[in-house]
Structure formats: structure tokens, C-alpha cells
């Protein structure tokens, strides 16, 4: 199996690739994990991971600056229906729109808007940074075998308000309810960082490899 990690000059790519390698070894699949920064290569892959750190707008612009990538990704995900995993801002980019930094369109694959977390408890800090639990809300392929209330590592100040609740596979409480994982057919996303969430995170990457 060939898995591409898209490098658009943001994010902790190395962490993502070594966690995927570990997960791949664990499930005894010989996966070929490559970091790519051009659209042409995408066709040769079976799965894609879209990492992301930084502001929604900056991430969307950086991604878009890879010539032809939006068309190729749309073809890969929406027409060929191959699996994609978005991590953190990578997941947020699936939204219709992101408010951050004056606002920007997203990929629009899952309806909804990415908004600043509106804390009810003002003694809490932003970014929402550290280990928090997830409440699993639906039958999810990605979260298969993960116990309810498991800990994952989060770091973000914006969250994805998903229009259709059926696409939400997990939520997390931080004085308000935050969407922490989404799933729509072949489209998977986590607000938390599986590559930084030790055994639980590796398990999720194993699930993605097995899908």
C-alpha cells in the first residue's frame, strides 16, 4: 500500500511519517509512506494524509500553492473515493469555510464552518493544549477498538462546527463540546494529533491503514 503525506510546508511532517511507519509495521502491512509536494504524484497512491498546523487561511493558501493539488485531491477523494485522513487543521480544511485570519474557503467536502472556540469558562486557556478525552458518538471505522473516554493530544484554538451531526464520530469537552473526530465515507479526520497520542494514536493510524 502506498500512502502519501502532503507537504505544504506546515506541520510536524516527520512526526506524522514516523508514526505511520510504526503503525504500518504493527499491522504487518508493507506500506510505502512518502512525503509529497506535487499534485502529479498523487495518482500513484492508495491513501492520503493531510496534516496541518497554523491558521486555516494560511494552510489553505499554502496547500493551494502546490500547482494543481486541489483538483487532484478532489478527484482522489470525491470521485475515486480513496481514503483521506486529515489531522488538526488538515481535518478543518475539509470544511466549507474557516473564520480564522479574516476568513477563507475550505475544501467544502464536509459542510460546516471552522470557528474560534468560544469558551464558557474564561479561566480556561486557549489554545486548547494538552491531553483530553474523547466521547465516541458513532460507529466509526477510524476509532475501532478505541475505548470511550480515551486520551488524545490536542492543540488548537479553532474548532469545526459540522452541519450534519451524522458525520461526527467523536466529541471532546472543553467547557463547550468540540468536534474531535469526523467520518464521512472515505473521508476521515481528527482534531487531535494521533501521531502524538502514544498507543491510542498509533491504533488510529493502524485503523486508517487497514481501511
Amino acid at each position, binding site marked *: 500500500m502506498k500512502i502519501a503525506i502532503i507537504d505544504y*510546508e*506546515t*506541520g*510536524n*511532517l*516527520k*512526526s506524522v511519517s*514516523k*508514526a505511520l511507519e*510504526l503503525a504500518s509495521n504493527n499491522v504487518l502491512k508493507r506500506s510505502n509512506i512518502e512525503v509529497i509536494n506535487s499534485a502529479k504524484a498523487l495518482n500513484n497512491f492508495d491513501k492520503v494524509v493531510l496534516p496541518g*498546523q*497554523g*491558521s486555516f487561511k*494560511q494552510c489553505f493558501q499554502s496547500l493551494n500553492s502546490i500547482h494543481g493539488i486541489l483538483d487532484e485531491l478532489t478527484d482522489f477523494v470525491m470521485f475515486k473515493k480513496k481514503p483521506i485522513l486529515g489531522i488538526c*487543521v488538515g481535518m478543518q480544511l475539509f470544511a466549507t469555510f474557516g473564520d480564522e485570519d479574516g476568513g477563507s474557503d475550505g475544501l467544502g467536502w464536509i459542510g460546516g464552518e471552522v470557528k474560534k472556540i468560544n469558551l464558557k469558562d474564561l479561566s*480556561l*486557556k*486557549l*489554545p*486548547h*493544549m*494538552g*491531553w*483530553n*478525552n474523547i466521547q465516541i458518538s458513532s460507529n466509526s471505522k477510524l476509532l475501532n477498538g478505541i475505548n470511550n473516554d480515551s*486520551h488524545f*493530544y*490536542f*492543540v*488548537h*484554538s479553532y474548532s469545526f462546527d459540522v452541519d450534519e451531526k451524522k458525520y461526527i464520530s467523536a466529541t471532546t*469537552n*472543553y467547557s463547550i463540546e468540540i468536534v474531535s473526530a469526523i467520518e464521512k465515507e472515505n473521508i476521515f479526520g481528527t482534531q487531535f*494529533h494521533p*501521531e*502524538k*497520542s*502514544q498507543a491510542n*494514536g*498509533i491504533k488510529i493510524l493502524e485503523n486508517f491503514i487497514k481501511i
Partner: protein
Amino acid sequence: MLKKRIIPCLDVKDGRVVKGINFVDLIDAGDPVEQASIYNQNGADEICFLDITASSDKRDILLDTVKKTAECCFVPLTVGGGVRSIQDIRNLLLAGADKVSINTAAIKNPELIKESANKFGSQCIVVAIDAKKTNVNTWEIFTHGGREPTQLNALEFAKLAQENGAGEILLTSMDKDGTKEGYDIELTKKISSSLNIPVIASGGVGNLEHLKDGIIKGGSSAVLAASIFHFGEYSIQEAKEYLKKENVAVRL
């Protein structure tokens, strides 16, 4: 519920973990890669790797050691020491860091915080402040691994760092560092209660109660410690079990 973080810190000099008192008199505390691997296994919530003489030696950070350390970390790894430019940050992220801590360069040029937060996101920019008490309720920032005074007020600068997009503050008390007397609670509280971003308390931990005080009395979101973990006085697991018993929310 979001948990308080326990962060073991590897102060690295010439590729070895060292521990000093008030930032000098360094003694050897092992191999960073081995230590990081143990902490990763042992339930550390994050790991911090600081190349403590990179700035004062005017050289770049040990990318190769960072790479090897990152190989065995599946928790967030913060790396700092000698970070001066956007390119330095990108290199560290590519070497496997998840967050980058900027100290001397951020204090000399706060615009660097803004540029790097715009480029890589606030979540990966940690501004490290080394502060020394100079008067009642006043702390001054020192740079170059605590060697140079700046006449900058720590609280004012921390606010500026937040405004410029820092994702968190790593706050070290130079008066307490290595003394094992506990964190500078006054300093921690002062800064933490004045900011919206998380503050990591650092400098002075000698026992588990100090960790609790940093969180409960100091109001920090995370506590950093070096020697109590390096020399095996306490394991991270023990620290967490103690904190849980004291009603601090931790990940066990």
C-alpha cells in the same frame, strides 16, 4: 477534561543531558535519546529538549541529536536552543520537533514571534522566558542561557509574546533553577493569571509537592522538571499518581 501536563526536560550540552544549578555548574545526566525513550514509555505528557548552550556558543542546534530523540517520542516534543530564524524552525520541525521554543532571539526581536506564528501556527511556537527577581513583584528577563541581563520586565514581555502569537510560555525562574526549593510560585502565578495562553512552570522542583504547588498555587497548565526524573528520584508515573491523589487532573 483537559489534563495538567507533566513535562520532563532534557537540558542538552554537547549531545549529553546535563543538569546545572542556577544555570551553571553542569553535571552529566545521560544520553538524551535513551532518556527520551524512557520518558515516552513512562507516561510523559510531552518532552522538552533544550540545547542550553547553542545561543551562548553562537552555533546551531544539534539537529542530528534532535532527530534521534524525535525517533523515539510519540508524545509532543518541544525543542529549543539557538533558534534564530524561520528556517531554523522549519529545520527543527523537519527533524521531528512538534513545537519550537524560542528564547534569546524572541527577546531580541519580538517580531520573530509574529512571523513564526503566522508561518507555522501559534500552537508550535513556545516562547521561553528566563526570569530573575530584581525587586518586589518584579522579574527581569535574562538571555543566552541566563548569562545576559536585558532590563526587560518578564510580565510585560510575556504579554507582548502572547499578543505576537506565542502559543505558550515556558517560564523558568533563574533564582530557583536547580535549587530543589520548588517553583517561584509568585512569578508563576503573576504571569499565568495575566495571560490567556498556557504557562509551563519551570525551575526548582525538588519533590512531588512542588509539582502540585506549581499547578494549584501557581496556576500553571503544565509543570516541567529535570533532575527529579533524570536521576530516578521519582518516575513520571509516581508523580502522576501523587498528583491524582491530590486531586489534580492528570492523564494516567
